[in-house]
């Protein structure tokens, strides 16, 4: 029983880390994988989703509906941003990073000016349960389930819908897709919106567990970057396995030496991985297969 309890505690930690990594990275990974653009305002989309969710809950909506509002809001902001800024920079990927960083500065500081340095959040819903010697939060299990659902939903979107087929055609050979009548600009725009909406979803899901500060996005982005770098350009072959590997590393180091050790060990793991597999896990899988 003792061992079982310890094992469950570790699995719970791994699951928690995994959910956090998958959810914080998937929006970034979709935008990067589809368009080769790294969106440095990713953390601010997460913040946007979280803030809208909290406002919606305060306005009386139930939490799931509020999270949907947050997702939608972030998605709309993402589409607007694509139309105004990102669209003009596709031929210059490095400049896109710089521009989205500028947007991130504006968003963080703008929210600080408009809404103040901190804001009352909403409490963590659901109660806790006990297994063996420790008690655990049920909401964390919801987050783990949400991570799995997001991955499955993305798989279905990209493989079973018309949008998904067009999107994949656009990544592979953009001008050929265009010649066949796909509106590639629209696809890019929608993909950016989808990535932003996923970031908003992450923000909404984690809003009840965090303190609401304008810089809250920063606590996600390092994890998101690291997962995308290790994973490479493909969401399914990259992000999910990368989150798995990093989640185990992070959980093991966190339970052994504390949270900071978990982060540092992840960073070291990333630096070693890119030395060995420069195009990430997905690049490696694709090379082995092809």
């Amino acid at each position, binding site marked *: 029983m003792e061992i079982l309890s310890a094992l469950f505690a570790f699995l719970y930690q791994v699951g928690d880390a995994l959910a956090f990594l998958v959810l914080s990275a998937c929006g970034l990974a979709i935008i*990067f994988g589809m368009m*080769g653009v*790294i969106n440095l305002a990713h953390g601010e989309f997460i913040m946007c989703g979280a803030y809208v969710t909290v406002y919606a809950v305060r306005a009386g909506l139930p939490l799931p509906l509020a999270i949907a509002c947050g997702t939608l809001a972030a998605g709309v902001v993402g589409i607007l941003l694509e139309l105004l*800024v990102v669209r*003009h*920079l596709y031929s*210059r*990927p*490095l*400049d896109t*990073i*710089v*521009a989205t*960083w*500028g*947007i*991130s*500065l*504006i968003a*963080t*500081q*703008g929210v*600080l*000016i408009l809404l103040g340095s901190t804001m009352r959040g909403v409490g963590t819903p659901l109660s806790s349960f006990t297994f063996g010697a420790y008690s655990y939060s049920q909401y964390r299990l919801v987050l783990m389930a949400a991570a799995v659902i997001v991955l499955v939903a993305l798989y279905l979107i990209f493989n079973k819908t018309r949008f998904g087929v067009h999107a994949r055609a656009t990544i592979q050979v953009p001008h050929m897709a265009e010649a066949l009548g796909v509106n590639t600009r629209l696809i890019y725009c929608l993909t950016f919106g989808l990535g932003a909406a996923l970031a908003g979803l992450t923000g909404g899901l984690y809003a009840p567990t965090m303190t609401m500060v304008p*810089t809250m996005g*920063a606590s996600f*982005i*390092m994890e998101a*970057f*690291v997962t*995308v*770098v290790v994973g490479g350009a493909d969401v399914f072959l990259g992000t999910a396995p990368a989150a798995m590997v990093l989640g185990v590393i992070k959980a093991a180091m966190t339970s052994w030496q504390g949270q*900071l050790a978990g*982060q*540092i060990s992840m*960073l070291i793991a*990333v*630096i*070693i991985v*890119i*030395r*060995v597999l*420069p195009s990430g896990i997905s690049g490696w899988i694709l090379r082995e297969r092809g």
Partner: protein
Amino acid sequence: MLAKANKLLNGPQTMGKGPAFWTGFVVVVLGAVAYPAFADGWTVGNTVYFFNWIFMALGLSLIWGYGGALSFGQTAFFGLAGYGYGILTLNFGSNYGFTLLAVVIAVAVAALFAAVLGYFLFFGRISGVFLGIVTLSVTLVFERLMAQTAGPEWRVGTARLNGFNGMTGMPPLTVPWFDGDIVLFPDVQLYYVILALLVVVYLGLRILVNSRFGNVLVAIRENQERAEMLGYDVRKYQLTAFIIGSSLAGLSGVLYTSWGQYITPSSMGLTAAALPVVWVAVGGRRDLTATLVGTFAVLSVFQTLTIYGSQYALVVMGALLVVVVLFAPDGLIPGIAGLSRRLRGSR
């Protein structure tokens, strides 16, 4: 002698050349030398504060503008060297000019760290986008690492790290002299030392980018595969540029720490890391002179904004960055230069 200097300092990789530019250069330097006579101590010290940051900007210009490798994490080296200086001087004091040795050691530590990190990055053949992300992650982890060192158990020798409040109380730079040490408080003496250092670094970098090394570096930026086909080991050139640029970031960190006698973890945070990119991008990353002038200008504007509308300053910086990237991708100064040339040509 003049012809030789001319050949070393001028070349295809720097914009300013010819008698007009160098006359202007001499006038600006003379003006800078005369400047303390017309300003009070505080303003002079404040100008030194601006100068301190320019080294980091010049380093980023070398890595990003000339080498084409965008590093977001220059503040990691800034912080590392700054904390290094603090730890060394708090432990060993400032007698016998030890502060100068501490500067050298701290910058060397930053350079060593850059060499190790750069080895993994460049020899792993990391493409442009990933390089930025990994370096940014490094500086963010450094910030978190230092921010949680509040407890008394976090000390190196006698130096407390002090968590989020940062280290304080390290001595300013001192120069050993015959009749006692000269302490360089942020005032006129320090101004002249830093000004001289800035001129030396600027001219040194000019020589570097106009040398064979600089030409190869620019060739790599323009087309990495072509440079490789021509037989250059791209990785070594990029790594060298990264180490030099990061050492300059470290130098900025040391000078900043000794200038204000404090350093905090937020100097390695997300906002701090964004600022060097703003200065370099706005001024014009592909030219040292443009970077230098642009950094100085943006810093002055930023400080004025901070005084009059403190919280809007960062919003303006962000907007400036977006606008420059969209409409003047090479930076404002080359943009203005190109525009005036076109206007003159059309007349």
